[in-house]
């Protein structure tokens, strides 16, 4: 049986974590940028 290697599992999970963290940061940055231009709503 061909199985997923450990490195791929690590890449998926760590990569996912990094993207989630970066996503939260990006949302806050977008909000700051929108609020400076008064374009939130």
């Amino acid at each position, binding site marked *: 049986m061909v199985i997923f290697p450990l490195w791929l599992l690590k890449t998926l999970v760590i*990569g996912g974590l990094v993207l989630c963290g970066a996503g939260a940061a990006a949302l806050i940055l*977008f909000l700051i940028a929108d609020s400076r231009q008064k374009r939130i709503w």
Partner: protein
Amino acid sequence: MTFPLAATPETILRPSSGYILLAIFGIAWVALGKWWGRRAQSYDGFAVAGRNVGLALGTATAVATWITSNTTMLAPQFALQLGVWGSVAYSTASFGLFAFAPMSGRIRTLMPQGYTAVEFVRRRYGRLGSIPFLIISLFYALTWLISMAMAGGKLLNVLSGIPYEVGMTVVVGVCVLYTLFGGMYAVIGTDFIQSIIILIGLVVVAVAVLMHVDMADVHETLRTERPMLLSVLFPAALMALFNNMLFGFGEIFHSNVWWSRAFAMRDGVGPKAYALGGLLWLPVPVVAGFLGLAAPALGIGISQPDTAGPLVAATLLGTGGALLVFVVVFCSLASSIDSLLAATSDLMVNDMIEPYAKKELSDAAKRKLSMFSIVALGVLSWAVAWGNNSTLATVLFFAGPMVGSCIWPIVGGLYFRRASPVAACAAMVLGSVAGLIAYELIFPFVGALVGAAVSGITFGVLMFLHPDQFDFATLAGPKRPRGADPQFASAGTASAETAGKETPGADQSGTVQSGEID
């Protein structure tokens, strides 16, 4: 019914803690809804947040709405039952957001004053297309709403021992209240806060789990005890991969939850917000799914697979983890329930009540009807969910074949003049029937796949045999009263030649020209 306050051996969080969290977040969401609701004076404000939502809130609302409690519950379940492919399969639902990104821009351009997806289908395909589409849309919206309400009661019960009926009632009640007060402003505003809490909460929980267990141990345990979960060629998982992707396309393309946001976002924001939303959502099922994969290595017994993720996190992290998971789950539930309440009430007002009203509805009347619809939807979902008589996966995936059959009629209707009412109607009906038969007789994970395939073939063949020559510019015009709109009288009766002569600008009455050519 009893209201226990002490933790039972099966729960990690004390019910009293759960009640306190429910009270804090419930009051906070309702207060924010009331505050943002000050902006929602007109119906446009209430239904589509003034059509001026920026990138930050637009992206966040796409992420938060798509992170349902099913993401936090079913992604670990998928991983536990279908392995690594299960997590990846769930994350393919983000492809729907990527694909919808350009569509959202086109929707906004074609219908700058639009409100709902059904309104588009009615004006594009007439009654022939809008009846099956409205049935599918309502079925899906109610199914999703009820499954969210059930998930609320079930999760709060598993985590804190709060009785199912109490948790479900509070979750539904809070969402109804703040959506009622603030409409789309409240929905999108709270979505921003909820998405931040969910993303950060997920990272904290996953990092904490990684600190308790080595990934090499997880891999080794799976390899020796459950090798199929690591198999690259796990047939059921591969079917789930494509099925889930098509389910996601169907869900997003047809659902008014996504269309109403496309109408709400400022011109030019939609494509960016949906693409970024997809990117931010993509890793969530993978991270949540890892909690399910880690369960065997951690020796955590899972009696109910769809609660694997929260149980793993709460078991490992104790009270702090349980509190965090509780908050993340509550946010996931609220972000989806509020969206469904708002978007489905738009359907009820614009597509079920207004077309059949004897006179044109005023702005104030539509706003009142929206509020009434939100309450009615809340009561209906609460009443059905009270019984707690079906598993989440069954409730959710039963709608898969039906929404899968909407993919081609929507895409074709947005981009191809030749897409005709007959093709759209037949594609939705035949695709749904074939998909549901496959779901029951073959395997649940092929339902959406078969539905989309049969719908696509039907749509393509009939578009060739019965082509239309639709004039997209007519979609930009205002809606016409029912009696004056040929679409209400008979689908596809206006000729293409007429459409060519009465194009936008010239057609101030908003006549819809989507008839077939003989």
